[in-house]
């Protein structure tokens, strides 16, 4: 008899304990949510300026920077900014967040897609419910979104790389390229465009070799060493990949070639900061993620306002960045890549 009652009590107690804990958690979060919700019906009036950023994953410095830019823009037009996203970059996790945002009736989702098609049906449902979809950083198939804010074109990237290196070596001498993998579509397209630009506009600069570091730090490091030994007259290296340019900079900074062989490429400020400050690298390029997020927010606003629909030729104002035109396939181009050097690198943290 004793065991029966005690076990009955303990189960009841277990139940009430669990229930209390869960209720507490939900009430706490629910309260937080509802206070957050009340501010959404703020000063923006009739337009639904609730804009949610959904990056590939949270806790990534690149997206922290871009989404801060987005938040700054949203503040300028008195909208409500939020950022949600999965802890790991998985496509199906983003689906759950798109569904959730659709139910919460946000005005627009600004998305960096983990998969060009896996988000398709969730995005289609979101748009059917009146949510505007802006992609940035990584696009989906064009039919699933209203606008893609493109950070850079292949032409733009190729041009800035050639411009930077030729300026640094005095528009004369041998250069080489340290790329990612031999079949990386992006890099190969850029390299082709660089070759054309060099042939047409820089007759005294000779591209002697293209080597592949496979986007692996150690391989890129070794290939840099091999390049410098094979071509003693080498004046400059272009590495259009963040892994490659950082590895090449690490090699150069500890070798006798430091300051003699110029290096540029696509890099991130956090990886390149030391090498810029110690003189190994004069300048490198990438886009400014903060501007990317800022522009995406204004694109979302213009879609919510109905001043644009995403068709070619539409144009809208994007605060301090000026006026932008929608190009083919509903794409808006941020502009020429951004050049990072000693004068501005301290401002960036990604």
């Amino acid at each position, binding site marked *: 008899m004793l065991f029966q009652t005690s076990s009955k009590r303990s189960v009841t107690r277990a139940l009430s304990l669990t229930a209390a804990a869960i209720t507490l958690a939900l009430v706490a979060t*629910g309260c937080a949510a509802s206070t957050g919700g009340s501010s959404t019906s703020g000063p923006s009036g009739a337009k639904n300026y609730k804009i949610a950023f959904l990056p590939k994953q949270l806790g990534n410095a690149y997206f922290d920077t871009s989404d801060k830019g987005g938040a700054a823009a949203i503040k300028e037009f008195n909208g409500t900014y939020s950022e949600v996203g999965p802890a790991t970059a998985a496509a199906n996790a983003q689906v759950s967040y798109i569904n959730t945002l659709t139910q*919460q009736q946000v005005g627009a989702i600004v998305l960096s897609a983990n998969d060009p098609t896996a988000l398709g049906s969730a995005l289609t449902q979101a748009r059917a419910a009146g949510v505007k979809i802006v992609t940035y950083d990584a696009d989906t198939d064009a039919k699933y979104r209203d606008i893609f804010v493109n950070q850079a074109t292949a032409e733009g990237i190729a041009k800035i790389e050639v411009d930077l290196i030729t300026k640094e070596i005095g528009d004369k001498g041998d250069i080489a390229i340290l790329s990612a993998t031999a079949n990386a579509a992006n890099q190969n397209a850029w390299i082709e465009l660089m070759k054309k630009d060099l042939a047409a506009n820089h007759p005294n600069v000779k591209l002697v070799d293209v080597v592949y570091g496979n986007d692996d730090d150690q391989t890129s490091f070794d290939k840099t060493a091999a390049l410098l030994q094979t071509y003693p007259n080498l004046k400059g290296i272009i590495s259009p990949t963040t892994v490659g340019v950082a590895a090449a900079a690490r090699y150069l900074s500890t070798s006798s070639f430091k300051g003699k062989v110029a290096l540029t490429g696509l890099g991130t400020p956090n990886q390149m900061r030391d090498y810029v400050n110690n003189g190994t690298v004069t300048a490198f390029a990438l886009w400014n993620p903060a501007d990317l997020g800022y522009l995406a927010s204004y694109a979302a606003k213009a879609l919510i306002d109905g001043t644009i629909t995403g068709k070619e030729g539409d144009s809208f104002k994007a605060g301090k960045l000026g006026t932008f035109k929608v190009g083919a396939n509903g794409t808006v181009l941020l502009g020429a890549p951004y050049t990072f050097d000693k004068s501005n690198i301290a401002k960036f943290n990604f």
Partner: protein
Amino acid sequence: MTSLDTRTPLAAKTIANYGRPLWRRWLLSRESAVIVAVILVWVVASGVVPYFGTTTTLGFLLLDATPILMIALPMTFVIITGEIDLSVASTLGLSSVMLGVLTKGGVPIELAMIVCLVVGLLAGAVNGFLVTVVGLPSLAVTIGTLALFRGIAVGLLGTTAITTFPPFWQNLAQARFGLTGIPVVMVLVVVLIVIFALVLHFTPFGRGLFALGLSKDTAAFSGVKVNRAKFIAFLLTGLIAALAGIYWTLRYGSARGDNATGLELSVIAAVLLLGGVSIFGGKGAMHGVVAGVLLLGVLQSALRLANVSSDAINIIIGALLIVSVLSPRILAWARRLRPSVARQRK
């Protein structure tokens, strides 16, 4: 306090419990506690979380829970025998890639699905062979095949994805019954739940799994074909993981090598921690497992709608899982401190 002291009342309690009528044992079981928790969380969340109490939420929640729910069924079999299968998410990924590669190569999708299921059976057979015939521990074997199957999946497709599938099948994978929000795929899931529950609780094979989990030798002497039973359990996880892979591919319209990476942990968390199945084998019930999966799904969905960040959701769920494991022990400890129990033991 010796270990014998602490065990005696528990053993007596178990016997006392079985002395009670079935409906009372049923009502006071851990499984019922989880079912009550699901209902409670649902009701509370509908009250306090905006947009939660809708059929849309129900639909998304069930769609998200479907692959976990499917795999949890055979996983319960495996865990009740005292083994574990960590390779299920990789088998899912492999099946997904196979479906993509075959349909892209012009194989009719119905045939491709059958091939995927056969691949799943083969994957399960590899695990089963290594565990039962070679006699290796399932933890080691399935960590190995977790890497192996995922490696094959990623190797077949690289970082690309195959994204064209017949619209009929894709629509079916996410269709709902009218305005109820309940996905059509739940018909398949419910049929599977019924079959697995019947097999586990009402057939000699299923009862044999329990016996086998409690004591391999006793089970063998009682006429349970130990290795055959374990082998079948692994075949089933492979088969159902492949089925979940087909569903996953069609639902997201994307066959990728990295599909469902890490899903095995959600499955095991739901089965072991919330579902009340014992990691040591021999204990567990199908309705508890189903409720465990749903509790996980309802909590995640409610917290997401309440704008809780993904890190905080992981922390809350992780803490709840630990509480769910600890609570029976804490309660047992508290019971021993009670004067009435102490007096009884003297």
